[in-house]
């Protein structure tokens, strides 16, 4: 950047143009700032935070203990968030059977949350121990 400035000899007229150019830049910057501020104050939650789906604010926990998901079958209303919490001394990794969603490897006491919006039956398993399975039933009026 400094190279460009050095390459432009500052004559009287150029200096004048330079000052205007600086002022112009400042104006543009201010305008951007004002616009951004306006955007923020008028913004809805969905503009700022990439939420995958609308939530009803409710969270239900599924505990993982002794290589078992409890409750093993869970019925929820659309918009409910399910939070899997690992209580085992061994890591588990929660994934929908076709990998529509997957957690990272969950060490002891770590958790993974997912919000279910569409009604239907979701089967999931533990990628580390595939014989561990569970089911989420999403339906209107579900608990």
């Amino acid at each position, binding site marked *: 950047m400094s190279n460009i400035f050095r390459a432009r000899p500052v004559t009287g007229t150029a200096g004048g143009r330079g000052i205007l150019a600086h002022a112009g830049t400042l104006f543009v910057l201010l305008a951007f700032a004002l616009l951004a501020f306006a955007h923020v104050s008028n913004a809805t939650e969905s503009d700022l935070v990439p939420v995958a789906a609308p939530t009803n604010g409710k969270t239900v926990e599924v505990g993982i203990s*002794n*290589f*078992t998901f409890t409750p093993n079958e869970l019925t929820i209303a659309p918009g409910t968030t399910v939070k899997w919490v690992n209580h*085992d*001394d*061994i*890591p588990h*990794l929660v994934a929908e*059977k076709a990998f529509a969603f997957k957690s*990272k*490897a969950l*060490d*002891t006491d770590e958790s993974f949350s997912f919000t279910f919006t569409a009604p239907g039956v979701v*089967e*999931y*398993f533990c*990628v*580390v*121990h*595939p*014989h*561990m*399975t569970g089911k989420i039933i999403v339906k209107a009026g579900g608990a």
Partner: protein
Amino acid sequence: MTNSRDWENGGPEMDRRGALECMVWAGTGMLWALSRGLPSSISIGDAKAAELAKGAFTFLQISDSHVGFDKPANPNALGTLQEAIAKINAMPVKPSFMIHTGDITHLSKDNQFDDAAQVIGSTGLPVFYVPGEHDVIDEGLGKSYLARYGKGSSGSGWYSFDQNGVHFIGLVNVMNLNAGGLCNLVVEQLAWLETDVKALSASTPIVIFAHVPLWTVYPEWGWGTEDGARALSLVKRFGSVTILNGHIHQIMQKVEGNVSFHTARSTAFPQPEPGKAPSPGPMKVPSEDLRKFLGISEVSFIKVNQPLAIVDKTLADA
């Protein structure tokens, strides 16, 4: 002690030569050798084992180091791995190489892979790896493992090599898992295996190593490989087949005709015997006893068309 109805499909078998089929829980080392065509077990003292192994081609099996594990069953899995490696470094006669049957790390984290490589590398021996399920739970579900140990392998990391006339095959049965299923080898790997052994003469000793037991040990705990029998049928014609597995953190051995199965101890923590606990997680033992449950295995090739001799040593042994 025989409990074969629990551990295999179809119950006990006797082959035509009347070979003894035996399923042994080994808390101490058992040495299997063939003498006049009949297998017999020899309780080994170090002197007998050394005599049999003298001059023989020997390699090591280590397994389930779970570097990064720090829960009550063993607060320092890296430390016990270091102890195991120190024992290897102190061996007066070095083995030719080591096989690690997987679960190198506990959480597939980079620093865990690094620590394991550094400690194991101190032996200066070549090491051949296959992944365990704990090695393929990175964000890319196996990309980290393959980036480090996948060179020269195919698919999810399977490969073979020859050493001293023995054909070694590393299989991967911890990827491509199906919800609700056991571990599996998948069609592509089995097709590769068929081609890989096609041209070998039946007298070539075969060693197959994979993380999860290739035969069904305890399906309720996921201890088995769904299509393992397919792999075993592809090597049925060979005079000596040795299957080396890990995953269950305890010794289980079985001889079925020409095929010997052996699972190794972990260097990190023991797990309960099948059905003896609500789940197969880490088993807490008194800390002064921990090292009796951890160990490494020495495998020696004694004679053609005979089982390889396997000597299991615990970290508590001198």
